[in-house]
C-alpha cells in the first residue's frame, strides 16, 4: 500500500482528521497521482489552496506523488 502524509494549515484543517492535522492518503495503485488529483479526491476546493509543499519544498499542482511523501497544504494568503 502506498501512503502519503498530508498536513493541513489554517482554515484548511477542517479537511483533515479530527484535530485537522495529519491525515494519510492512500495512493491508488497503478496510476500516476498528482497533487491536483489528491486535492480532488480529498474534496479540498482548489481555489482555497495556496502554497503546496512536498517534502519541505514548494511544489506544483502537477507534482507527482510517491510513497512516503509529506505534503503540507496552506491556504491562500493576503497581507503580511
Amino acid at each position: 500500500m502506498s501512503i502519503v502524509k498530508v498536513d493541513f494549515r489554517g482554515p484548511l484543517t477542517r479537511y483533515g482528521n479530527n484535530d485537522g492535522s495529519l491525515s494519510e492518503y492512500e495512493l491508488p495503485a497503478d496510476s500516476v497521482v498528482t497533487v491536483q488529483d489528491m486535492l480532488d479526491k480529498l474534496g479540498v476546493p482548489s481555489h482555497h489552496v495556496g502554497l503546496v509543499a512536498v517534502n519541505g519544498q514548494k511544489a506544483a499542482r502537477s507534482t507527482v506523488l510517491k510513497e512516503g511523501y509529506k505534503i503540507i497544504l496552506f491556504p491562500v494568503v493576503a497581507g503580511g
Partner: protein
Amino acid sequence: MGYINSVLRVNLTTGEISREGLNRKWADLYYGGKGLGIKYLYQELEPGTDPLSDGNKIILLTGPFTGTIVPCSGKLSVVTKSPLNGAALDCSVGGNIAGELKYAGYDMVILEGKSPEPVYLVIEDGEASLMEAGFLWGRGTLDTEKELLKLHGEGARVLSIGPAGENIIPYACLTSELYRQAGRGGAGAVFGSKNIKAVVVRGTGGVGVADMPGLLKAAQKAMREDLLTDTNLWAYTDGTPMLVEMSQNSGILPTRNFQQATFEGFESLASPSMQKARAGKKACLSCGLGCGNYTVKGAARVEGPEYETLSIGGSNCGIADLEAVVKFNALCDDLGLDTISMGSTIAFAMEMTEKGIKDLGLRFGDVSSYLEAPELVAFRKGKGMELALGVRGLSERYGGREFAMQVKGLEFPGYEPRGSWGMGLAYATAPRGACHMSAWPVAEEAYGERDPYTVEGKAGLVADLQHYNALKFSLILCDFWALSFDLMAELLTPILGREVAAGELELAGERIFNLLRLFNTREGFTGKDDTLPDRIFNQGLVGGPGAGKILPREEFTKMLGEYYRLRGWDANGIPEKDTLIRLELT
C-alpha cells in the same frame, strides 16, 4: 458623513491648541489615512526640513470607515517625514485608538513644533490639553500606558513612546494597547524629538453615516460572504506566524542576515509551535478576524510575535528559540523599538563579526547578547550607541555595504528578494524604503503559482499592488482582508451618501502613490535610490529551494525601467507632466 470634519492642531512650541475644519477637497481626492496624511504633509512641510527639527510635523489620521461597523477598519494612520531616511513615512497601528479619536470628535491630529518640556496630549470629547510628562520620561510603554489609564480612566486609549523614542533612536516606534505598533521608519523618534511622550484619547461621541440601513446591510453581507471565508480566516486560525513555514518551503525565509533563505531551526518558530504557546486571541476595533496571538512562553509574554519578528528577529539572527524571540519582541515593544529594524541591525552586526569587520559582541545564534541589545540601543549605552545607527549607518561607518540589507536606509523585512523577484522591485520602489506594506507580491510569487524567478509581468503586478495598498491604507482597512475595489466602493457609498465607483478608488490609489513619489523627489531622492544591496545582485543563495539564485542586476534594471514606463515616470523615476495631469496632481 463618515467624517467628523474636524482637525486638531497642536503647536507644541507655543502650547497653542486649535480646531479647524477638514479640507474636504483633499478628503474627496485622498479619503483619509495614508493619502490624506501625505497630502497635508506635502502642503505644509518646508522642503528639506530636518525630520528631527521643530519644523517636522507628525499627523495622526483616521479614515471614512474608522469608528463604523465596516470590518477591519480599526487602524490609526501616522504620517511624518522619516528620521531614518528623510523620506515620506506612513505607518499604522491597530487597537482601538483610531475609533476613539473619532468618538472624541476628530478626524485627525497634527502635531507640530517642539515642546520645551516633556508633555503628553489628552483629548477628551473635543477638549484637548497638554500635560506635564516629566514623571513618565524614561519609562517603558507598558508602564506608561498603565499609569495614564490610572489617571484618565480605563476606557481611554493611549499611544506612547518608550525610552527609544525619547532618546531619538531613528527606528523607534509608537505603541498602543501595549503590543501594537506603528513600527517602521522612526515615528517614535519624531515624538521624542518633539518632547511628546504620549497621546491619550477618550470619546463618548459617535460616527454618523449617510445611510445606516444601507451600510448595515452591505457590511453584514461583506463580513459573512467575503471576510469570514477561507480566503482570510488564516489570520484568525494562525495569524502571520503561518508564513514562517511557507517562507521556509518556498525558500524566502531570511536567515543569518539574508545569507540563506531557509533555516534549519524554523520549526520552533513556526505556527504549530506558536499555537502551543497561545494564551488568547485579540482583534482591533471592528475586526472579525482577530489576528493577534497572545503568547506565553516560559517567563516571556507578548501579543505576537508576528511573522516579521519571527523571521527578522529569529531566523535572520540565527535564533531558533521561541521563548527568546518572544522576549525580544516584548523588550522591543516596551522600549519602543521597531522589531524589524532592530532585528535586521543585530543580524548585520552578527555578520560584521563573522566577516571580521567589527565585533560588537553579537554572534549568530547567541541568545544572551541578542537579548541585551535592545536595551543598550534604547538607552544609547555601550555598543547600543553603534547599533542605534541602524544597518545603513553601521555599514557607512565600518563597511559591509554589499550585505547591508536596506533600501533608502530602511532595513529589510522578512522576505528574500532573490526568491521573489517582484518583491525586490517592491522594496526598491516603496516610498519609505525596504517595506512589505507598499506591495506584497510574495503572495503570488513565492506562495502562489507565479514564477518567482522571472521579471516578466512583475512591474505591472507591483504597480497594481502599490495602488491597491495605497488606497486601502487611506480608507484604512486592514491588510489582512483581501477585498476588491468593488466591495470597498459598495461599503463607502452608504457612508458618504454618494455613489462611489471602484475605478475612482483605483485611480486614487495611483494618485496617492505618485504624491508620495513627488514628496520624495522634492527631498532629493532619484531613481538611483531605487535599488537593492549588492548581495541580492551577485551572491547566490546558500541552500534551500533557491540555492544559487541571485536577482541578476540587468534583469532588475529591465524590470525597473518597465515599471517607470508603466507608471508614466521618466528614466530618472520622476513622474512626467502628463501623469501628474491625469492624476490631478498639478
